[in-house]
């Protein structure tokens, strides 16, 4: 006879324990859909405002990058007049002018696609190299692991901004979005490889891997179909954050004078050109910096919420 204090799905009354609500232990809906890491994460993400804010910002930045014409009619380069140098806002030019008398608002809008392309190309490169090196090193172990990990160490121990400065000096005749992405990505992948390797070392001893081995599934297929999908979560988080740092790296290289040529519209270039006028016209430096920071912030926020959603331990910290 259930007492009046039992919950509907409990057989008998047990005193509530403060730390762990009993429902969480006792009630498992057998007829419910099976959940996995990704559906759990999505259910968690949906409830978080920070996820929607960052997602909206990213969608907005992507739209600006794809269709700059929707946001400004002013040409960013051809309409510059030195008479307007470092001028304040006027009719039709809401953010004022750069040192060359170009419209700041238009240059920021048109610079978006540069930053975003570099971010995406670097991220693709880092993901491909990082997953290939990390997966093979972690899964096969032994001498393959030693060789691949030492190669990773070599690229990891040179600070990647410095390496990119050297590569950009070597390829100074070919400065474009692809070359700068290559220069950044070539030295940025070992972090991803290390994260994946560590995760694969953990996953490859799981029971389901043993089960697959017992069924006679080939090693490579086990890696591809069973181990990799179960170890990819931390890689997705670090990839989001590496997209943000690639955008910063492009701006830093342009800022150091070894980035994209000054004819290319880029936030880093604009910030670099404005640095000498910091005293007289700080807005020429601050405004593109804000565009850069907001874009980076939105990707970092996305990485943060996805990490929290994928990590059950992090949920306890909120």
């Amino acid at each position, binding site marked *: 006879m259930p007492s009046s204090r039992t919950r509907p799905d409990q057989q008998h009354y047990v005193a509530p324990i403060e730390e762990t609500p009993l429902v969480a232990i006792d009630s498992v809906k057998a007829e419910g859909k099976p959940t996995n890491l990704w559906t759990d994460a999505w259910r968690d993400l949906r409830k978080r405002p920070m996820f929607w804010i960052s997602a909206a910002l990213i969608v907005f930045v992507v739209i600006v990058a794809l269709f700059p014409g929707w946001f400004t009619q002013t040409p960013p380069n051809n309409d510059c007049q030195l008479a307007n140098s470092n001028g304040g806002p006027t009719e039709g030019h809401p953010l004022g002018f750069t040192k060359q008398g170009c419209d700041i608002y238009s240059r920021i809008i048109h610079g978006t696609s540069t930053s975003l392309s570099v971010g995406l190309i670097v991220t693709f490169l880092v993901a491909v190299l990082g997953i290939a090196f990390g997966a093979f090193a972690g899964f096969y172990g032994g001498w393959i692991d030693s060789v691949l990990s*030492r*190669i990773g*160490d*070599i*690229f990891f*121990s*040179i*600070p990647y*901004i*410095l*390496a990119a*400065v*050297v*590569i950009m*000096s*070597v390829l*100074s*005749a070919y400065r474009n979005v692809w070359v700068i992405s290559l220069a950044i990505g070539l030295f940025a992948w070992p972090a991803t490889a290390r994260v994946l390797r560590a995760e694969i070392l953990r996953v490859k001893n799981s029971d389901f891997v043993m089960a697959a081995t017992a069924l006679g599934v080939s090693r490579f297929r086990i890696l591809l179909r069973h181990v990799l999908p179960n170890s990819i979560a931390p890689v997705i988080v670090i990839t989001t954050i590496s997209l*943000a740092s690639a955008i*910063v790296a492009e*701006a*830093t290289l342009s*800022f*150091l*004078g*070894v980035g994209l040529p000054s004819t290319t519209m880029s936030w880093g270039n604009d*910030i670099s050109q404005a*640095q000498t006028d*910091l*005293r007289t016209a*700080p807005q020429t*430096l*601050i405004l593109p*910096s804000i565009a*850069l*920071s*907001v874009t*980076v*912030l939105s990707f*970092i*926020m996305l990485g*943060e919420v996805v990490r929290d959603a994928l990590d059950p*331990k*992090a949920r*306890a*910290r*909120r």
Partner: protein
Amino acid sequence: MTGYILRRLLQAIPVLLGTTFLIYFMVFAMPGDPIVALFGDKTPPPQVIERLRAEYNLDKPFIVQYLIFLGNIFQGNLGTSFSGQPVSDILAQTFPVTLRLALLAVFFEMVAGIAIGLVSGLRKGSIFDASALVVSLILISLPIFVVAFVAQYVFGIQLGWFRTTVSAGAPIQDLILPAIVLATVSFAQIVRLTRASVIDTDGQDFVRTAASKGLSRTRIVPVHILRNSLIPVVTYLAVDFGVLMVGATVTEGIFNVPGVGRTLYQAIIRGEGPTVVSFVTVMVLIYLVVNLLVDLLYAVLDPRIRYAK
């Protein structure tokens, strides 16, 4: 333990060889003739060029140059820069400056980061915690040169509290502003790391035991919670110190700090192969040693970690 250290040192050898080869190869591939560039817009007589070329071994094939360089490194000879100064002298001038800057930056981020992270973690979900999270996210998103310029503009120009650039000899008071700028990024990371670690520790059984023994919160927090939360934070600080030691190119450039990062950057831009390669070799060596020390530090701080064999 000794075996572990030996094995790590052995592993460092191929990494060091690979790194020097890689950087040597890239510097070798740089366009432009450094000897001609040395003379600016004047054209030196061909004999002079020949002689300088032979003196710096630039007339030999790439692999021979690399082996000569490697042999010199093993004899402790880091070569001379194109201005005739021994690279070891340049290192001796620049490393103390970078060391001071790095120590100062690590000090700032440690004190501020641990304090704010601890309060955030103990008052999880409070307004203080939420605002610390927002501020740390924003600081992580700001590129270092933006932070540097804003700091220079506000504290150097508007308020006039600090000099905007570092004067000769790099005295400590001039390094404070660049150190704060360098500290901002890692400060945010340390706040988050400390917070997470404090929350994890606060939920541990030994903290509950301490509370049920009747210990006051003022004793539990520093002795039981903080000490046990600091392991990941201290190792992060050590890694960050290693990163800062290899030079903060951008910050040193903006504040005109005569440290490793700025000197190396200028050497790359001038195409000074030997200087660049020697600098990077020493930097990688420091980086590898610091990382080894970090792993050993881990074992010292956390008795559960033991390096067998």
